[in-house]
C-alpha cells in the first residue's frame, strides 16, 4: 500500500502519509491532526476521515479506540447556503 496514494480526507485531499507524519510529530488527537493537516475541515466535517484517523492514532500509539475522542461536529451540519438561511428570515422591516 502506497501511503502517498491513500486519501484519508477526501474533502481536503489529505493522504495517509500526511496523517502518519502528524502522529509521528506528536499530534495524537483527532482535533490536533485536523488543525495541522486540515483533515475534517471540509464540507463533510470528517464524517469518514475522523474514524480513519482515530484508527491510525490507535495503531500507532497503542491507545485503545474507545479512548480516542472524535472531532467536534459543528452546526450547520450538512452545509447550507447563505441564501437558504436568509430566505426564511427576511421580515417586512428588512425590506
Amino acid at each position: 500500500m502506497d501511503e502517498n496514494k491513500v486519501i484519508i480526507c477526501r474533502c481536503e485531499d489529505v493522504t495517509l502519509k500526511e496523517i502518519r507524519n502528524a502522529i509521528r510529530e506528536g499530534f495524537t488527537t483527532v482535533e490536533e491532526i485536523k488543525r495541522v493537516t486540515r483533515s475534517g475541515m471540509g464540507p463533510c466535517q470528517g464524517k469518514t476521515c475522523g474514524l480513519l484517523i482515530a484508527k491510525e492514532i490507535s495503531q500507532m500509539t497503542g491507545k485503545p479506540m474507545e479512548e480516542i475522542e472524535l472531532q467536534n461536529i459543528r452546526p450547520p451540519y450538512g452545509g447550507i447556503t447563505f441564501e437558504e438561511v436568509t430566505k426564511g428570515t427576511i421580515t417586512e422591516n428588512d425590506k
Partner: protein
Amino acid sequence: MKNKANVVVIGGGVVGCSIAYNLAKKGVKDVVLLEKSYLSSGATGRCGAGVRQQWGTKQNCLLASESMNIFENFADILQIKRDIELKQKGYLLLAYSDKELEQFKKNIEVQHSLNIPSVLLTPKEAKEIVPNLNIEKLVGAAYCAKDGHANPFQVTLGYAEAAQRLGVEINKFTEVKDIKTKNDALLGVQTNKGFIECKKVVVAAGGWTQNITKMAKIDLPIYSERHEILVTESVKSILDPMLMSFSYNIYCQQEPVGSFIMGYGPENEPHSYNMESSWKFLETMSKKATWLLPPLKNIRIIRQWAGLYNISPDRQPIVSQINQVEGLYVACGFSGHGFMLAPAVGILMADIVTGDKLTYDVILDLERFNRGEIIEEPSVV
C-alpha cells in the same frame, strides 16, 4: 515533566507560545509552558486570523507593524520549516459616514508616521479592488495592501517548535490547578500532573486568565465574552482583501484555500465562558454578508463555532507585571486583536520578565487603569 523551572508560562495559545520562545531566545533557561488542552485550542485556534496595521494609535500601529515584519520573515527568524500561509492582499476598511471617513484620514496620518503604506479610497476605487462589493451607502474606504491573514495553528506551532528547540519544555494536556504564594512571592504552580517550583509565572491563558490570577488572589479588571464566527466551503478566489466595517459591524475574508471566514461583534452578549454556536448568529451573519458581497448567497456555510474575547477596560492588551505578587506577570485583554500582535507582545513580555529595557516604546501595563491613562483606540471591532 520538570518539577522546577525558572519561568512557567501558562497557556498554549499564540501569546503563550510567543512569550516562551522569546524568553528562551533571550537566554532564559528552564522555561516550562503548560497548556490544559492542545496548542491553539483557545481563542487562537478560533480566530479570524486577520493581521492588520491600520490602527489609530501610534502604539498599536507600531506593535502591529513590528509583528507584521515578523510574520513576513517567520520561517527565517524562527528557523523552522512551517508555512504560516501569510496572505498579504490587504484590509479594506469601509466608511459609511463622513465622520467615519474623517477618522480614517486621521488614522492614516498616524500610520504614515510609521511608514505603514495605507491609502484613502473613493467607493469607486474600493470597487476596483473588490469588484463584487456592494458600494451602496459607502462613503469611502481605507486600504493597506500589506495587511492580510496568516494561519493561526501554524503560527502557534511554529513558535512552539522554535521554543522547544531552544530548550523550552511544553506540556500539553496539563492543567494549572493552583498558584502557590507565600508573603506575596511565588512558590510554584500546581498542575493535574504535579507541582512545579518556580519564582516567575507568566499567565497568558486568554479568556481564562482572570480565573488563574485569582488563584494568587489577584482580581484583574478583565472579562470574557463569546464571539461567533463561521466558515464556508472553498470556492475560487473572488475576494482579495479582508473586508471590515466598524459601523456596519462585520469582518469577512477569503482564506488562501478559498473558504470565506467571517464574523461580527455581538450586541448585549453577557460576560461568560460560553462557546456554543447560535442560530441567531447564523441568521444575522448571512444577512450582513450577502448584503455586502452578494455573490456569497450561493456559497455553502459549512461550519460555525465560537471563541472568547478577553476584554480589558480600554479593549487593549495588558502586558504587565503584577505589583502585588513578585514574579507574577500577565498578558491578557487582547479583545479581537491578540493574534496579530502576538509576535511583538512576546518580545515585550520577555523584556519585562528579564528586567531589560523595553524593545518598544509602548504603555500596556496594568497600572494605567489606576493612573487613568486609558488607550483611546478608535478602530476596534
